[in-house]
């Protein structure tokens, strides 16, 4: 440890002691004038207080806002139900009751499915609604190439995979999840006829537009909020026709190295990172994105921003329900927690 580093540590001890109104440590090596300046600054800072009337009014306003927050006492309706259930019992009993209810529902659903099929195998068009969770609903923007990666296991052991026609689905998720800048006019791509297996329809119906996600660090734009009060905002990009829109979207996102997106003022937390897409696969609704390179963030607020930009870019495709991101083979949450 050199002198400058040691002096900086001693200075910090002086500052901390003064802030806690404790006797100052005696550091003979520390420049006396510098120490006194630090003490003086701490004293001036601690004498500075917000107007108590303003502070009280603000607290009152926050109290009122708190009461109007949706689900202030529980994060979700399910949690409220669970809390009610466990109010007079232990949590383990609550879990057991909930698990029993879910098991009964699942048993009933399977029973109805078998009954309606009268022992016949289910066809692609005869799938009862109760088995919808086992169906991978795919919009045309997720193409045969990515679907081929989706159904890599043998058909006999995997849930039935059916490509559904996009009856009401748009190529992108609904505009209610995130506002779209600059325009919200997704182009409809041609629909495909239902097919028993994704490999059976190799034709590409690629879109020439994808969304990438930036951040409104002011949080003033309505939309999904993350981290330090930021809002995730979608912007549309034109891309060359592609058979793998997920990969193209991620690559498009990673290609932006401006801190602020154009003149929009939207922030890009990935601007310092040098990441490349190695692979992107979709299995049972879970997209696994493998990146390589270096991830650089500017502070604790950037961690959720980086994750949100990547996740939301993947989640724009309705076939994707969950996203796992790895950087150089390590989970991105682990990578960022070590930053």
């Amino acid at each position, binding site marked *: 440890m050199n002198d400058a580093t040691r002096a900086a540590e001693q200075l910090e001890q002086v500052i901390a002691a003064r802030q806690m109104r404790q006797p100052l440590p005696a550091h003979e090596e520390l420049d006396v004038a510098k120490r006194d300046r630090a003490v003086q600054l701490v004293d001036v800072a601690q004498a500075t207080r917000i107007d108590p009337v303003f502070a009280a009014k603000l607290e009152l306003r926050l109290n009122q806002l708190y009461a109007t927050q949706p689900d202030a006492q529980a*994060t979700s309706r399910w949690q409220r139900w669970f809390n009610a259930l466990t109010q007079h019992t232990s949590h383990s009993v609550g879990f057991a009751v909930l698990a029993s209810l879910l098991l009964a529902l699942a048993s009933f659903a399977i029973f109805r499915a078998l009954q309606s099929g009268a022992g016949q195998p289910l066809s692609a068009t005869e799938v009862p609604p109760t088995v919808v969770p086992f169906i991978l609903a795919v919009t045309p923007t997720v193409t045969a190439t990515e679907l081929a990666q989706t159904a890599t296991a043998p058909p006999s052991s995997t849930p039935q995979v059916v490509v559904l026609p996009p009856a009401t689905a748009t190529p992108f998720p609904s505009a209610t999840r995130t506002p779209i800048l600059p325009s919200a006019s997704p182009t409809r791509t041609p629909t495909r006829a239902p097919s028993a297996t994704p490999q059976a329809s190799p034709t590409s119906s690629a879109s020439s537009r994808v969304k990438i996600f930036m951040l409104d660090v002011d949080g003033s734009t309505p939309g999904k909020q993350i981290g330090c009060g930021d809002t995730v905002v979608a912007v549309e990009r034109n891309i060359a026709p592609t058979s793998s829109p997920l990969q193209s979207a991620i690559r498009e996102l990673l290609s932006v190295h401006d801190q602020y997106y154009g003149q929009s003022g939207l922030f890009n937390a990935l601007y310092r990172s040098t990441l490349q897409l190695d692979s992107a696969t979709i299995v049972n609704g879970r997209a696994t994105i493998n990146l390589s390179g270096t991830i650089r963030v500017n502070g604790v607020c950037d961690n959720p921003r980086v994750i949100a930009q990547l996740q939301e870019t993947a989640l724009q495709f309705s076939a994707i329900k969950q996203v796992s991101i790895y950087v150089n083979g390590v989970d991105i949450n682990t990578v960022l927690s070590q930053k």
Partner: protein
Amino acid sequence: MFTETVIHRVDQPTSLNASTDDEVLAAQAASSRAAFAELYRRHVDHIYRYCLGRTGSVQEAQELTADTFVSALECIRMYQSGHFVGWLFGIARNKVAMFYRQRRESVSLGEHEVDTQPHAQVETVVGERLQLESVIRILHKLSPDRAEALRLRILGDVPIAEIAHLMGKSEAAVRMLISRALDDIRGRLEYTGETSR
């Protein structure tokens, strides 16, 4: 006192006290108004001082403080970073950054009044006004990283570890930034003859 009246408005009595950890309170704040109120009272002065150090204006610092806590309230249920102070100051920094971006012009400290303690004795206020004004003015002349580290540490009372998280630097680097910032301040005060000693 008005403040005491407000405190009594919060919901159920709790065992919250000064020793309760910020992280515990933050975890409770999603469902406990009392926990959020305690966090507010603990950090409102720190956030205000930091905003004052950034803007040099009491009114703007108050507005930014209010914006910061309103956003914190809206996002508290998503909080999971394990660094509450860093998270809160991250919001404050966002608000200040947006404030400057919207204004599209640098703030001239000469145009703003710096009021440090409106309800203190007049003599005390005069003495502190002079010191704080000169400190804030000089902070604007330092390199951005040094000024920011010093603001967070001295005005915001943010621990070194949290500043390191906020700024994406090592703790040693932050300590060094603060040390050098104090060197710079001392040099400038001596140069302009504004030392108060």
